[in-house]
């Protein structure tokens, strides 16, 4: 009954240690990359990449490869393709673009269903691919996650300043010689890596628990970009730790706890913003902090 003894019991299980290690790695990476995704208003693209991960993972299972490989290959591959698609600038082409993305999503999920159908006796696997599972994270998976997330975070740090500039004011940035187009492709690839990593904990459909919710809350709490980025990472880590703990002590799925805790934090952030009548992160404040 003592929560502290429960915690020490939890870490005596190897699978929980792996779950916490993988969860923390993923949370740090997703909290940071998600912050930029929310700032750039690319949540729809993030969701599409996550959905593309599902057929990747189920195809990997069908072919006898590791689930990790399936997620990383399909999400990063999808990111490269989406990044290289010609981008519309006018309203009319953007509308067509959203239909394209919707079509890609639906077809990706349908292809996932096909692989699941081809691989008989995989019915329970479907829900864990879609809604996450913290059981059965192997040592190799932790190492792979650590390597990929580490690389992605370092790469993000390297491009963070010009990316921030390009995200906030693309026109001025490109006039000053910032390579806006290649930055946006590079960012999508990083996003693909983060989504693939997050999918392995939260499942394809609930990646927003660590990608969007922490960032959306953090951007409501402060106008200072650096502080808000750090808060986003911290919230992502808190969500993951609490979610894993709750899933461990109860019988309900981890995805449910991750999204609920994230949503509560998001609502609290809206509430505190309302109380302080703070304005959300804006272009002007980022300019002021540059």
């Amino acid at each position, binding site marked *: 009954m003592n929560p502290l003894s429960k915690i020490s019991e939890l870490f005596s299980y190897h699978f929980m240690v792996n779950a916490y290690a993988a969860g923390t790695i993923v949370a740090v990476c997703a909290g940071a990359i998600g912050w930029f995704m929310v700032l750039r208003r690319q949540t729809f693209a993030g969701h599409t990449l996550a959905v593309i991960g599902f057929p990747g993972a189920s195809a990997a299972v069908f072919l006898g490869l590791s689930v990790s490989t399936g997620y990383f290959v399909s999400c990063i591959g999808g990111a490269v393709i989406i990044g290289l698609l010609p981008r519309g600038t006018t309203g009319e082409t953007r509308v067509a673009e959203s239909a394209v993305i919707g079509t890609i999503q639906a077809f990706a999920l*349908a292809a996932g269903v096909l692989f699941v159908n081809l691989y008989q006796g995989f019915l329970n696997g479907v829900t864990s691919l879609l809604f996450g599972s913290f059981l059965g994270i192997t040592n190799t998976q932790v190492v792979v996650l650590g390597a990929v997330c580490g690389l992605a975070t370092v790469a993000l740090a390297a491009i963070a300043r010009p990316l921030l500039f390009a995200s906030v004011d693309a026109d001025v940035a490109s006039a000053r010689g910032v390579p806006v187009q290649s930055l946006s492709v590079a960012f999508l690839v990083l996003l693909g890596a983060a989504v693939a990593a997050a999918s392995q904990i939260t499942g394809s459909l609930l990646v927003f628990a660590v990608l969007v919710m922490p960032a959306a809350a953090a951007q409501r709490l402060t106008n200072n970009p650096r502080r808000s980025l750090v808060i986003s990472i911290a919230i992502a880590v808190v969500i993951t730790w609490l979610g894993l703990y709750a899933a461990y002590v109860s019988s309900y799925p981890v995805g449910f706890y991750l999204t609920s805790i994230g949503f509560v934090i998001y609502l609290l952030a809206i509430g505190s913003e309302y109380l302080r009548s703070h304005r959300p992160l804006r272009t002007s404040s980022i300019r002021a902090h540059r």
Partner: protein
Amino acid sequence: MTEPFHGISHMLAIPFMDHALLAGGLIALASGVVGYFLVLRNQVFTGDALSHVAFTGALGALALGVDLHLGLYLGCITIAVVMAVLSRRGITDDVTIGNIFSFVLGLGTFFLAYYATHQIGGTDATAGVSVLFGSILGLSSSQTTFDVFVALAVIIAIVIIGRPLLFASIDSAVAEARGMPVRALGVVFLVLVGVTAGEATQAVGALLLLGLLATPAGAAQRLTTHPYTAMSFSAVIALASVWIGLCLSYAQPVLPPSFSILAIATSIYLGSWAISAWRSRVRGSGKTARSTYTSLR
């Protein structure tokens, strides 16, 4: 396989195939028409969010021990109204939608686990999967009748509000200036989207809704900029996807019906893309739904 017509008459002799073709066909027509406006109004992401709500609504109903369809429609319509209220001028911020739908979907997994562990009214282990990916081959005859009526109601409603909705979607500022209830139209439209989403969940599953809502509409809008022609194309493409897809799955049972339907819809989309690319090379583009609409008025 040597005699396709023989195969088709065989297929039509099976009651569940008849149900699937009838209900699926009408659901497709309704989705095609509603989807046209969804794409035109740039609300595809809203449709996407609704598809997640459909899952949670259905499993919430199962967990509470009530009829799955009640939860499906109630969930979709409620969230559609909530999103309409949240948004200004009917277009909701995608970060807010993302937050809400992730939470709702997480709740759905809770209901799924609750339903699975508490054995409510003869637990069906595949309930979650069939809500997610559709169960069109499992429609009963009463369910088919109900679906047909709901789909017809949606189509009639769209026919009634079609003209003002088109105006409000293409040029909301002018429509508002002329005293049209732009906001109310947006709410009514989202309710219709909610109903359609609830229905289409049975056909292709909650997760694949966009395949019926966005894909045919997107293809139609590549083929023509004329609003009413595009709307009819969208409905016909959706219908063709469902019917051909069902036949394909009947001929090749290893293919799940949802996959076949989406594969056909996606192929049609790719075809329309190729046609529009070829056409714009031949005679240049420049016409848009807006300019065509303005020239028609």
